[in-house]
């Protein structure tokens, strides 16, 4: 954000990655589990970033798609003994197809109505997860999901999952950033900013929205599959509407305008409960009030708010010689 220089950025990125790669050696096993869960949430928040942050379509169904990915992996590995990697691909594809069908039906709706319908979708999906006992295990959930592995290599510890998730997260982040900068990403953002203007410029909004939705669905499917491998037990109580709301809150807290937003939002909401553990039963109350406070103080999220403060400081201190004259009059 601060450095405009491309090579400085790349160096910063590499340093951050190296630090992240060394992280497991510096933290406890418990913290590692928190971080793994944070990565899973981050992928889902990225899916929210694609469909809401970029395309401006408020979808509350992401937790349902995440659950669908998890159930597909669980069913494929426990009932059909499919190889883990194939199950991961199956989850991504299966979720993509399902999301495409939902999108084809629901993108006939405009504006807020799409968001309303997506709430209906996630509630229906959760009802099915909870009650279709022969397939999803019903209230008992599904257990005994094998570990993830490719060929002879098997993920058998929290640390190996950490590296697997780190790899996936970096890959997906890069893909998202590429989409963000491509013409496809620009057509997403055109729809977000003004759908009619986008249509006038030749963007097929129905088609483009569906593409964005399918991409977000693939992310959710991958996240769900990895979640199933990581926890080896899944139940319908994870894949609920409030979870989608949390993704939205994470995105809005960080800022929906750049990929740094999801990173900051997810990290913050994953780590704050750990830091504020002494508050115990007050923690959710503080969380709720904190969300209100942050929205009131920084409506554009931490990234947007930080940018504003940074610009403000630049103006105050004058920056260069040319700017000094203008700021003299003000301050």
């Amino acid at each position, binding site marked *: 954000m601060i450095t405009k220089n491309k090579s400085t950025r790349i160096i910063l990125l590499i340093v951050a990655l190296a630090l992240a790669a060394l992280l497991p050696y510096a933290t406890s096993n418990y913290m590692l589990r928190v971080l793994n869960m944070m990565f899973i949430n981050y992928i889902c928040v990225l899916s929210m970033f694609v469909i809401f942050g970029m395309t401006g379509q*408020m979808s509350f169904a992401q937790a349902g798609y995440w659950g669908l990915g998890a159930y597909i992996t669980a069913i494929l590995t426990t009932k059909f003994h499919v190889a883990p990697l194939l199950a991961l691909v199956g989850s991504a594809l299966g979720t993509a197809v399902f999301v495409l069908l939902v999108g084809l*039906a*629901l993108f*006939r*709706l*405009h*504006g*807020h*109505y799409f968001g*309303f*319908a997506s*709430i*209906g*979708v996630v*509630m*229906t999906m*959760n*009802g*099915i997860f*909870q*009650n279709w006992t022969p397939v999803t295990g019903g209230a008992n959930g599904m257990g005994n999901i094998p570990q993830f592995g490719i060929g002879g290599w098997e993920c058998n510890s929290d640390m190996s999952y950490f590296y697997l998730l780190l790899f996936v997260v970096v890959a997906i982040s890069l893909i998202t950033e590429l989409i963000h900068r491509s013409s496809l990403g620009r057509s997403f953002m055109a729809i977000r900013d003004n759908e*009619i203007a986008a249509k006038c410029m030749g963007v097929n909004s129905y088609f483009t929205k569906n593409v964005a939705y399918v991409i977000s669905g693939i992310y959710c499917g991958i996240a769900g599959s990895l979640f199933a491998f990581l926890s080896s037990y899944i139940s319908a109580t994870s894949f609920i*509407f*409030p979870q989608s*709301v949390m993704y*939205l*809150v994470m995105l*809005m807290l960080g800022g929906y305008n750049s990929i740094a937003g999801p990173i900051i939002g997810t990290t913050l909401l994953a780590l704050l409960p750990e830091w504020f553990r002494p508050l115990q*039963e*007050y923690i*959710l*109350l503080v*969380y*709720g*009030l*904190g*969300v*209100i406070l942050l*929205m*009131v103080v920084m*409506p554009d999220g931490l990234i947007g708010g930080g940018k504003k403060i940074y610009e403000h400081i630049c103006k105050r201190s004058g920056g260069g010689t040319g700017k000094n004259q203008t700021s003299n009059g003000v301050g």
Partner: protein
Amino acid sequence: MALQMLITSLAMGIVYGMVAMGMVLIWRAVGVINFAQGEFLMVGAFVSYTLAEQLGIPMSIALVACAVIMGIVGVIFHFITYWPLRKSWDITVIISTIGASIALKEAATLIWGPAPLSIDPLVDGVARFSTVSIEWQFIVTIGVSAVLMAGIFYLLERTYLGHILQATAQDQYAAALIGIPVVVATGMTFAISALIAGVGGMLLAPVFFVTSTMGGITGLKAFAAVVIGGFGSVQGAIIGGLIVGMVDTFSGAYVSSTYRDAIVFMFLVVVLVIRPQGIFGEKIAEKV
């Protein structure tokens, strides 16, 4: 049997309708969806527990007291979640109401404890009509709700105060220009909205146990009612509430009790796909 269920579904539906009406009033006034509407219902139920069970106030007085307290809660809610954000993007207000709903839920757990509480019905006993017997509670629920909603309808459509509220809802800037104190009008709308949802909670409390999570699913079903009825229409919200109540009760009895919630929301999706603007909604015009 069928008549009994019809009365039950009407009672449930009218409570959904009340919560939905509160949502629509806020939507019309400030153009924001309030995700904490279900939590108003939950707070109303807890307040009525304190008034009726802990302080031993007679039910009829408790009902009025509960309404007044909920009105004050609505005003406080307005000043914390909406007023500071009135000039920013509507999504930020939605997020802030989501934060408020979490905070309200947790505050209720801290004050009243996590264990489910039970409340005596407003009127005990069972009414008998030849072969069918119906609990008085349901009849009282329908009666009180109908009177309250009619009163609010009268207030909005026929009184000077109602015209002030509607003028503010249509155009805040123009309302301010002709000397309407906008903050009073929006605050009042939130108060009315919290009041009807809270009374709904009080009426629902004897039927279910009072828990801090009771607002979540009821709020979402009320939300479904708003969308089915057509967003922005008060009549639509009430009719939508009754429809959701019927789908809820009858699908629970005749189709499958486990898939009950799923069927209600499936119904919402199907209605939206068939008729995107809801039953009473106006044709949506695309604005440039």
